[in-house]
């Protein structure tokens, strides 16, 4: 998995590319842990080909930390396969989910 970032408004846009599973999730957690807890995030999932429950768990863990710090965490551009994991587990109820990165960073 590759991780890249840019800034829009007050949001750090973190774009993930590749596979988000048990083998790559620690990389995401470490990456996010390197930022201030109060930094609000949009995680751009457009190029995530595959996500399993370890990937989901990493995102939920980040969301919990952001909530504790009163920061905002949003998700953008899930494909159908990723969406399916969020739907079965009802994890979509924990996130604001957008079809568009700039809409996410404006709202």
């Amino acid at each position, binding site marked *: 998995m590759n991780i890249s970032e840019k800034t829009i408004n007050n949001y750090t846009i973190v774009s993930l590319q590749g*596979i988000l*599973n*048990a*083998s790559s999730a620690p990389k995401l957690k470490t990456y996010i842990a390197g930022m201030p807890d109060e930094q609000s995030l949009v995680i751009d999932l457009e190029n995530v080909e595959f996500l*399993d429950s370890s990937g989901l*768990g*990493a995102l939920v*863990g980040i969301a919990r930390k952001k909530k504790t710090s009163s920061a905002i965490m949003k998700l953008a551009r899930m494909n159908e396969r990723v969406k399916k994991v969020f739907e079965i*587990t*009802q994890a979509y109820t924990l996130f604001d989910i957008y079809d568009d990165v700039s809409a996410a960073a404006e709202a």
Partner: protein
Amino acid sequence: MNPIITLTLQANLRYARIASILACNIAEIFADCTCNSADIAEFCHAYELSVSEAFTNSVRYAKPSQPEKQVTIRFSSDDSALAVSIIDTNPQFNPVTKAPDISSYPEGGYGLFLIHRLMDTVSYTREDDTNILTMTKQATMTHGT
């Protein structure tokens, strides 16, 4: 059911993706013969995801005393279904079906629940010192080309 193919991999998380892609590929080969093409992508994704979950568990919950541990993935089929068994020598476990309480922001506990929801039947047996988790999905679709 007729065993078709057995994969053996080292119990290492770096092989989770290979296991899961090959499960998807095998489901696709199977589905080519028995499925309507519209349903193939979903059928394959169910195997890709379920094998990712089960293989990851086999690696994660291995006894520390087994450094050279391997995980076996066995595919069997008949005319109407594809079964995949994940076989490891970990401690016995309870193959829970319960959804985790999402409102508490759990970081884990989703794997077996997802498998139960993606597959038609999930069975667990403990044989000697071995866990066998078998996941089956019907391919009710018509016979293709």
